[in-house]
Each structure stands twice: as structure tokens, then as C-alpha cells.
């Protein structure tokens, strides 16, 4: 899922302190799972902001809503009839949702309430870590299911580098060396001989470097 982290309250307040009627819009999917932008977080942010504005003597109306998703037309349409009454919207969806809301409601001020971080897994409650960077050409078949692009700090396709120490990356003792993980798994699967195959130079044109990406499926298009 997409993992995000709450923006500090002070930062959000700074963005919208000039408005007097604000909607806080959460999302029921990824940001709910990583406890950054779901219904609960919407409630906490709204309550906190109300108290702040009251303390400043600024009468501000803060409404709350949590949409199923903010990346599909159908769910954002639910706001069609009510959105014009708001001076600003703070969206707690990931960067995708914030943008889609801004596109759809062109005349509305839309602000981000979370920092979108990466595509990753829930290791345990409260701990999420990166697994995929969307390179557009998956190579997991050749690396025993562990991605060197997202999990190696240098995205080496023929690692490890000389800084790998006791299974940890040179940049942090808390970071596993992706290549140690790959080698361990290749060993477990009886495929360590694959290690000596030289991975070819990557075609990065399907990644961010090639420009903003699009997937078009003519077979399902209407």
C-alpha cells in the first residue's frame, strides 16, 4: 500500500489559517491502514484545529468527511454538492488523492495533510517499510523476490557493495543490506549459482526518469 505520515499540525495550520470554513477530508484506504489519514485522524486533526482557532479568537468552522478513496471519480463526486461552501479543503489522502481532488474541484483551495512516502508493507503495527519504487519493469524473478531497486540504498543490480556489514547497509544499522537478503534467499532456494549472472544495465525509461507515466488498456477502455 501507499504509506504516508501525518504532517505536523503547525504546518497544516500555517497553510489554512486564513480560511474560516474548512473541510478535512480523509481516505478509507491506504492512509487509514498506516494511521495517517483515516476517519480517526480526520477527527483528531479537526478537533485540534478547532481548539487552536478558538484559542486565537478566530471563529472557524471545521467539517469532517472520510471518502472511500480519493483516487477514483465516483468517490470524489460525492463532494460535488457540498464542496463549494468551503473556503479550503485539507486532504489527508496520499499525494494522488490531493491532486485528484484539486483537478476535480478546480476552483477550490486544496492542501495536503500528510507526507506521502512510499509503497510498502506493514511490518507490525506502527512500523511500515518500503518495498517497491514502481520502476515499471519488475525484476523480482531474478532476485529471489527481493527488490534491489527499492531496498538497496544504491539500487545496485549487481551488489553488494563493499560497505555491507553484518547484513546491514552502510548507511544505517537499522537497514538490512538488500543483497545480503537476496543472497540468503538464493542460498535457501538452492539457487546461489544465479548470483554470478551479471544483471544487465537497466532500462530506466519506464521509471520516473522517462517522464510521468500512464497505463492505457485498450482492451478494457470503453
Amino acid at each position, binding site marked *: 500500500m501507499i504509506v504516508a505520515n501525518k504532517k505536523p499540525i*503547525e504546518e497544516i495550520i500555517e497553510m489554512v489559517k486564513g480560511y474560516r470554513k474548512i473541510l478535512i477530508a480523509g481516505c478509507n484506504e491506504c492512509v487509514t491502514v498506516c494511521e495517517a489519514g483515516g476517519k*480517526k485522524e480526520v477527527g*483528531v486533526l479537526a*478537533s485540534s484545529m478547532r*481548539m487552536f482557532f478558538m*484559542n486565537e*479568537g478566530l471563529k472557524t468552522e471545521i467539517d469532517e468527511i472520510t471518502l472511500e478513496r480519493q483516487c477514483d471519480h465516483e468517490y470524489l463526486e460525492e463532494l460535488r454538492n457540498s464542496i463549494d461552501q468551503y473556503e479550503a479543503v485539507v486532504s489527508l489522502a496520499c499525494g494522488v488523492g490531493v491532486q485528484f481532488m484539486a483537478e476535480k474541484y478546480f476552483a477550490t483551495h486544496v492542501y495536503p495533510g500528510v507526507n506521502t512516502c512510499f509503497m510498502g508493507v506493514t511490518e507490525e503495527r506502527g512500523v511500515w517499510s518500503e518495498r517497491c519504487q514502481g520502476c515499471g519493469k519488475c525484476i523480482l524473478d531474478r532476485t529471489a523476490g527481493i527488490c534491489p531497486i527499492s531496498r538497496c540504498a544504491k539500487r545496485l543490480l549487481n551488489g553488494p557493495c563493499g560497505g555491507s556489514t553484518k547484513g546491514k547497509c552502510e548507511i544505517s544499522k537499522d537497514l538490512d543490506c538488500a543483497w545480503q537478503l537476496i543472497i540468503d534467499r538464493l542460498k535457501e532456494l538452492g539457487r546461489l549459482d544465479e548470483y554470478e549472472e551479471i544483471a544487465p544495465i537497466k532500462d530506466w525509461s519506464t521509471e520516473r526518469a522517462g517522464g510521468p507515466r500512464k497505463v492505457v488498456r485498450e482492451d478494457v477502455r470503453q
Partner: protein
Amino acid sequence: MPCTGKVDLLHILRAFERGADGVYVVGCMEGDCRFDRGNLRARKRVEQAKAILDKVGVGGERVKMFNLSSGEGPRFAEYAVEMTKKITEMGPNPIKEAMGKAA
């Protein structure tokens, strides 16, 4: 409530939003929770509430968690007195005053 584990961060915040001067959460001794770790969850939420209340100008000192066992009646009263004293010293929730001026 059966356990402080049911106290939600939002319950605490809404109380202050509505003008409460102070909130104290009283739970079982740590390690003795009837429901295993409810009181530990409560403590974390109280800490979160403190941080938020400091940031929005209400004051994190207005919320506090106490631990005692259910048989300690006198101590319960003691904490109540302590909390009341502190809140009285701090004065009313600044929101009330600020909203009074704005009205």
C-alpha cells in the same frame, strides 16, 4: 468504562474542545490491567493528547494519567485533589476566554 483502554484520543480532545479545564484518566497499575494492556494504550493516548494540547495553546498539563488499584479509595481521592488543585492554579481553559472575547 470497563478499562482505560477504551479511552480514545478523540474523547480527550473533544472534552477540551467543549471547554473542559482538565481531564484525568485513572487506570489500573501497570502490569495489572484486567484486559492485559489497556492501561498502556491509554498512557500512549494521553501522551499524544498532551503533545497536541501544547501545540494548540491549551496546555498539555491539563491532561494526566494516574495508576492505582481498585481498592485504593483514599489514593483516588488524593489524585482527584491533586488534579483539581493543579487545574485551579492553571486557570480555566483558555479557549473559553478567547471565545468569550470573540463573541
